[in-house]
């Protein structure tokens, strides 16, 4: 019981640290990393609710985590490709820089 709660709260903390990073960090790469940390928190939480005392763990959250990990990998790869494209096209690495460049072009 205590073990489950420690893992669940660990997952919640990871999720919130990731959320803070996602909002507070400006660099897009850090935002992608923060998003991954949030995902890690969700997976930890899902695995912890699968714990079922001494019995066999609940397979449904496990299957969801397995699916989630693969989707995270592919989404991260796509996000990184987008970031590289933005960076090579505009030289910007933050959303603020992008907006600034766009308004410079307009003005």
């Amino acid at each position: 019981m205590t073990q489950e709660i420690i893992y669940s709260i660990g997952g919640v903390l990871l999720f919130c640290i990731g959320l803070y990073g996602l909002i507070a960090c400006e660099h897009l790469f850090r935002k992608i990393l923060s998003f991954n940390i949030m995902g890690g928190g969700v997976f930890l939480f899902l695995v912890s609710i699968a714990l079922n005392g001494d019995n066999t763990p609940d397979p449904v959250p496990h299957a969801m985590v397995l699916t989630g990990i693969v989707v995270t990998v592919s989404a991260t790869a796509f996000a990184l490709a987008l970031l590289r494209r933005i960076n090579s096209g505009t030289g910007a690495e933050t959303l603020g820089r992008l907006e600034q460049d766009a308004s410079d072009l307009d003005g």
Partner: protein
Amino acid sequence: MKADEPAEKITQRILTAFFAAGLALVLAMAVTDLPEGVGLSGDAQESLKQSGVENSVTAVLLNFRGYDTLLEICVLLLSVLGVMTLTNGRIRRPEYSIDPLLHVLARVLVPLMVLVSGYLLYEGSYAPGGAFQAGAVLGSAIVLSRLAGLAAVEKFNRAFLVAAMLGFAVFLIIAVIPLAYGRNFIEYPPEYAGILIFTIEASLTISIAIILYSLFSGGSAIPSRSHPGGRKN
């Protein structure tokens, strides 16, 4: 925090930190108060006999919640297509020389990794393992051979990308066939479920490995023609 940052930004960060801490507190209170014993564990164990496999996670992934896995391989394919579109196949590859030690190590490791991948695939029917783990190991074997400049990787061509779609295609066909016999989508007949799941898993393994490698190499499965420090033979 840097000293020259405007005060507005620092205030924003502090507010964000408070927001995140508050959310953590609320969520922590919620997770300590979760009802117990409401999982689907019992249901999954009960219907395990009809699923065609002995491992409950594999049964959930490929039988009970087959939709998830079908859509997941679809997401993987879409991300490869997205990355390929973005990079336009014009990825600048860093010029690096291949470490001779890595080369020798890879020649020992890659066959072992392929073996482990096959074992994980086979084992998935009765123990933890299956297409995703096997695909990840096989994918990293391909990445390693590419980093070590093994000759095998240089022979990849467009057929390689067709293989990336194999998993989705096979899964979709096997999922649709039951419709012709008046069953539901992804409702395998229990007597064939085992072999059907293994077929899907085998093709998923190949696809996942190739998709992971394609994502690593920037959407293009075709490596650069010149390997500056590569093997000369």
